[in-house]
């Protein structure tokens, strides 16, 4: 078979690879060893990415030199902290090509962003209001963060929750799109890149149908923002959610991008400081978006850190990162399909696919696969990856998932393939 790589064969030079030797120098953690001196092979970036020195230094210097609470302070530090926090908003806005910086709401993670939208729509007036006569549409490949908020909204309002199923090869089954998205549909929320299957979903077809019936579109871009150019205008969505810690940023910071007129029209969810215009004991008026949705002291350092992460990623170039991951994915699919008894759960070709590979290995339980790989220094994730319906759909209790990022190398793919051979032998 052409293109087959024999175990032990040096990895071919793949087209489109980044200079990982240089990039890996930016990530101090990738130098550490585990289990008595084994080299760490980190293949769990879909759960959370590692952080480059540039982000760590930014956090450090923020706290050492600039920290104070943001907004309305009249002293130097408050002004500096506010400027840094708001500059991070500018950077994120540019990163996703938002028409306006005021469309970028900082949250604590993607989960909060998605809950925020679901709650806004529950409390909204017409024409946005979700109630018992309306329908909410999601898909079977969502992360629990994009299922549960909609289930809660459906339970509270009496709305009907519907979803797209999946095809056997791990893609959305849109064959019944006209029945799933109807004139009753108020909101369609779906994942751009699946965190289990790796599938990149066909945004255009879904958005077109949603627009036909006047439904709002929410996109969970948690696994897209870190890995490919993201343009909220090109997506034509109404809301886009993502999370900082998967894109080289700190934990505790997420983003909700929303179209300006929606953010202006929709009611706030959390109340508190920062989000008001004026308050009396009887009622309050609210600050304009995005502040209307940022109650309380925000995650200032984390936002500033995310700004640094976005600078770092843009410095390398999102299209180059996407090309690198595409090459690694192609190679990994090739190497892993050569491991006996290994079944990829998700698309088996690298087309319209991200660098997240889930698989089963014979009937060896993923916990055992993950544990024996860990003993070799290889960090993968096992379980249902917060997307249990996907496992149910494919009739498996769990999967092992390897996910790659800009610092991943073909040699790490080789180590994984060899590690899996070892796992097979171990439980044979």
């Amino acid at each position, binding site marked *: 078979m052409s293109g087959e790589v024999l175990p032990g064969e040096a990895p071919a030079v793949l087209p489109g690879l980044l200079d990982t030797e240089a990039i890996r120098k930016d990530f101090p953690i990738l130098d550490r060893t585990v289990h008595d001196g084994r080299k760490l092979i980190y293949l769990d970036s879909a759960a959370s990415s590692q952080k480059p020195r540039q982000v760590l230094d930014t956090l450090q210097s923020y706290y050492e030199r600039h920290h104070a609470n943001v907004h309305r302070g009249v002293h130097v530090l408050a002004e500096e902290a506010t400027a840094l926090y708001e500059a991070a908003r500018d950077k994120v806005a540019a990163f996703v090509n938002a028409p306006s910086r005021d469309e970028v709401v900082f949250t604590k993670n993607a989960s909060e962003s998605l809950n925020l939208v679901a709650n806004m729509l529950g409390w909204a007036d017409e024409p946005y209001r979700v109630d018992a006569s309306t329908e909410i549409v999601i898909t079977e490949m969502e992360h629990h963060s994009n299922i549960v908020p909609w289930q809660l909204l459906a339970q509270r309002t009496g709305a009907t929750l519907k979803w797209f199923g999946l095809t056997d090869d791990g893609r959305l089954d849109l064959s019944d799109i006209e029945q799933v998205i109807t004139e009753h549909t108020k909101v369609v929320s779906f994942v751009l890149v699946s965190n289990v299957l790796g599938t990149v979903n066909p945004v255009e077809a879904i958005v077109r149908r949603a627009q036909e019936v006047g439904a709002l579109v929410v996109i969970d871009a948690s696994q897209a923002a870190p890995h490919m150019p993201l343009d909220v205008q090109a997506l034509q969505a109404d809301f886009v959610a993502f999370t900082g810690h998967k894109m080289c940023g700190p934990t505790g910071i997420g983003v909700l991008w929303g179209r300006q007129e929606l953010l202006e029209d929709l009611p706030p969810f959390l109340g508190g400081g920062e989000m008001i215009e004026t308050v009396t004991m009887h009622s309050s008026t609210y600050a304009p978006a995005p502040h209307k949705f940022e109650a309380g002291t925000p995650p200032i350092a984390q936002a500033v850190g995310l700004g640094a992460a976005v600078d770092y990623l843009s410095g390398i170039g999102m299209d180059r990162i996407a090309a690198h991951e595409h090459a690694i994915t192609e190679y990994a699919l090739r190497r892993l399909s050569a491991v006996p008894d290994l079944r990829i759960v998700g698309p088996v070709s690298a087309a319209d696919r991200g660098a997240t590979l889930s698989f089963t290995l014979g009937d*060896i*339980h*993923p*916990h*055992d696969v993950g*544990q*024996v790989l860990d003993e070799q220094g290889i960090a993968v994730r*096992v*379980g*249902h990856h917060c997307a249990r319906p996907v*496992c149910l759909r494919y009739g498996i*209790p*769990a999967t092992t998932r390897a996910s790659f990022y800009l610092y991943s190398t073909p040699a790490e793919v080789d180590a994984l393939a060899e590690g899996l051979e070892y796992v097979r032998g*171990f*439980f044979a």
Partner: protein
Amino acid sequence: MYQDVILDHYKHPHGRGLRSGDAEVHHVNPTCGDEITLRVRYEGGTVADVSYEGQGCSISQASASVLNELLVGKDLGEALGIQATFLELMQSKGRITPDEQMEEVLEDAVAFAGVSKYPARVKCALLSWMAWKDATAKALGEAAWEAAGQERRTA
């Protein structure tokens, strides 16, 4: 963590398959999807059978096999004592090195001492043991259960 004894029980499980019983329970470990359906049968005060069917990792499967081997044929008080000792070992975070006395009680189950160092896996090892305790309470009713506990404490 993967002692030969554990791998052996995993590859050649004792008493697997569901047989008749006085009570049945179904337990799951939500973090990893391990599942077990377990039945107990009592004759007088004796564990006459523990039968089970399940899916899961080697640790959860091997642990069910060891449970079957250890508890079948024991009287309830003794079985509860073994269960309590195993629980103690698994909750020790690797701090207990089984001594001779413990080895006598736990036999093959001492091989799980290493698993207690892995918090994510302790639940796997305990799945069948918790299911057994639950099924036993169900089979015997609360009163007999209390009495058995009392007997063990005063023994």
